[in-house]
């Protein structure tokens, strides 16, 4: 175990140093541009066990990602249905960094359309959530109904026979650009491409089972939001959530307080294409009683003074106690003991991403369960005991990768192929992600 008791942060800085030292021992033929300049295309011949650094910082590539991935055949997370329960309810959201709105119409249907006026492109809705009968762009008051159809254009016929739109202008030709929306057990996804396969097929049976483990049809209740912006490319975070190898090393909090052990049964599961994944753990201590007195800490000096923070109860069937599921292209569903959250990755250009966290429980949770979810949220989010390690380290990664666009990362823990694993010491799902990324991007 690299986490020597008491060594704390220094261990990790040393470890990071060791990893970067290892990187320079790459064979020369896999370091395509010795002058450090970014290549503009191509992938190392070795395939997904090598990841070129330029993909994390190239602004032109990000433009292509918008088109090929986020406007392509993908289901993008938009909102929870319980955020817009009533006719007229709406939520502002994003697909990549493209602003959209989810609105419930008078018939109860969910509509997702762009938050961009068809006239001059104004992002007209500036409220996070609300209730409306229609949307009016403030610039020239073009007005849209809850389905995104254009219903009014001021001075369409001009004023005193002057001005006005051409005689052949038809309002039905100028709706807001609409996405196809789908809802699965209280979760709303949308796609710019109407040919995207049905959501259940998109996930595949195995991933759908993990999804429906949390979203089993029970009514949900939002507990609150957290938002952060991290100066790193969005793929670094998505890949981090598919990489169990770091969990026992980077997340020293879990290890040192005995909350996580490498010996715990852990699994990496994927869909057939390798684009979705689930990191699964089965913790022994998540039994009926799991107070601080039961916790075995690897670092004898470290003991929670407020053990109430982590007193989980088992609430899902089966032995799995932690399932972190990534759904291509940019959603992570978090079930870490009793803390549940949607983590919506919103790329902000090539060099930054926003992480929008929506924490939730079930409408029928009792007060004790809600309190547990709120307490265990201390592990997650922009101030989470565990998740700050990830945001910080991917920002470190961006700082190391961006100036060395010609360098290549090594991803060959547990082999070079794309495969599931029954261990944490594996990077098969990371390779699966990049292989699918290459396929979609044509790289």
């Amino acid at each position, binding site marked *: 175990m690299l986490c020597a008791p*008491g060594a704390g942060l220094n261990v990790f800085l040393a470890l990071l140093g060791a990893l970067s030292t290892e990187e320079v021992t790459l064979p020369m033929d896999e370091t395509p541009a010795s002058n450090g300049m970014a290549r503009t295309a191509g992938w190392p011949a070795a395939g997904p066990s090598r990841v070129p650094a330029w993909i994390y910082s190239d602004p032109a590539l990000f433009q292509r990602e918008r088109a090929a991935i986020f406007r392509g055949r993908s289901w993008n997370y938009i909102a929870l249905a319980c955020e817009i329960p009533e006719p007229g309810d709406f939520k502002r959201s994003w697909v990549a960094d493209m602003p959209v709105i989810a609105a419930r119409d008078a018939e109860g249907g969910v509509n997702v359309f762009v938050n961009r006026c068809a006239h001059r492109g104004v992002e007209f809705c500036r409220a996070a959530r609300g209730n409306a009968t229609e949307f009016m762009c403030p610039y020239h008051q073009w007005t849209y109904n809850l389905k995104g159809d254009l219903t009014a254009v001021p001075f369409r016929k001009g004023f005193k026979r002057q001005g006005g739109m051409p005689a052949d202008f038809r309002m039905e030709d100028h709706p807001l650009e609409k996405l196809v929306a789908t809802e699965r057990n209280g979760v709303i996804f949308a796609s710019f491409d109407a040919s995207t396969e049905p959501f259940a097929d998109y996930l595949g049976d195995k991933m759908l089972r993990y999804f429906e483990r949390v979203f089993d049809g029970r009514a949900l209740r*939002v*507990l609150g*939001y957290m938002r*952060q912006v991290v100066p790193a490319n969005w793929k670094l975070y998505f890949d981090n959530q598919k990489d169990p190898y770091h969990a026992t090393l980077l997340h*020293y909090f879990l290890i040192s307080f005995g909350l996580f052990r490498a010996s715990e049964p852990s699994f990496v599961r994927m869909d057939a294409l390798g684009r979705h994944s689930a990191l699964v753990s089965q913790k022994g201590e998540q039994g009926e009683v799991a107070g601080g007195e039961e916790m075995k800490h690897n670092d004898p000096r470290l003991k929670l*003074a*407020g053990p109430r923070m982590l007193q989980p109860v088992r609430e899902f069937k089966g032995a799995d106690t932690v399932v972190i599921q990534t759904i291509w292209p940019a959603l992570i569903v978090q079930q870490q003991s009793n803390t549940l959250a949607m983590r919506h990755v919103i790329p902000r250009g090539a060099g930054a991403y926003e992480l929008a966290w929506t924490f939730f429980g079930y409408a029928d949770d009792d007060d004790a369960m809600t309190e547990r979810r709120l307490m265990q949220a201390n592990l997650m989010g922009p*101030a989470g*005991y565990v998740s700050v390690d990830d945001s910080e380290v991917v920002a470190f990664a961006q700082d190391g990768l961006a100036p060395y666009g010609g360098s290549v990362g090594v991803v060959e823990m547990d082999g070079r192929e794309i495969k599931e694993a029954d261990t944490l010491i594996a990077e098969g799902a990371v390779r699966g992600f990049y292989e699918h990324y290459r396929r979609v991007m044509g790289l």
Partner: protein
Amino acid sequence: MTPGDLERLSQAELRGEIEALTAAYVHALDDADLERWPDFFTEDCVYKVIPRENYENGLPLAIWYCQGRGMLQDRVTAIRETQLFAPRALRHITGNILVQGREDGVLRTVTNYAVYESTLDRASEVFNVGRYLDRIVVADGRLKFAEKLCVFDTSVIPTSLIHPI
């Protein structure tokens, strides 16, 4: 100081005491003297850092949620021993203290704050802006926070919040 002093002090004296408490609190944080941080709170305190969006919409989620001084100590332990983060210095500016009430031995105050963050290789920037909603009592012979809610306006947190506010 005794609980009775809370009732006896003049408005001006009271304000002086609160300002001194606030100054001591933020200097302890800015000096990275984190071990002293829990001492500003009562044993059964509540400390939360809450996005304004949640607070105003009645959503109970906080990004930090400590109940009892032990959980404050755990945060300090994690910062010192377990969490990975880039080196940084924080500087709190507080002001506009408003005393909202003084009853049953509890002072209710609102104080504006801004936290500046200085990190490696970048100019200092405003990290977090908000207000403290405090409930202050006399404990162990001095003023302590029975409850401190840091309700922040900042819509997105730059990278991560490591240190207490």
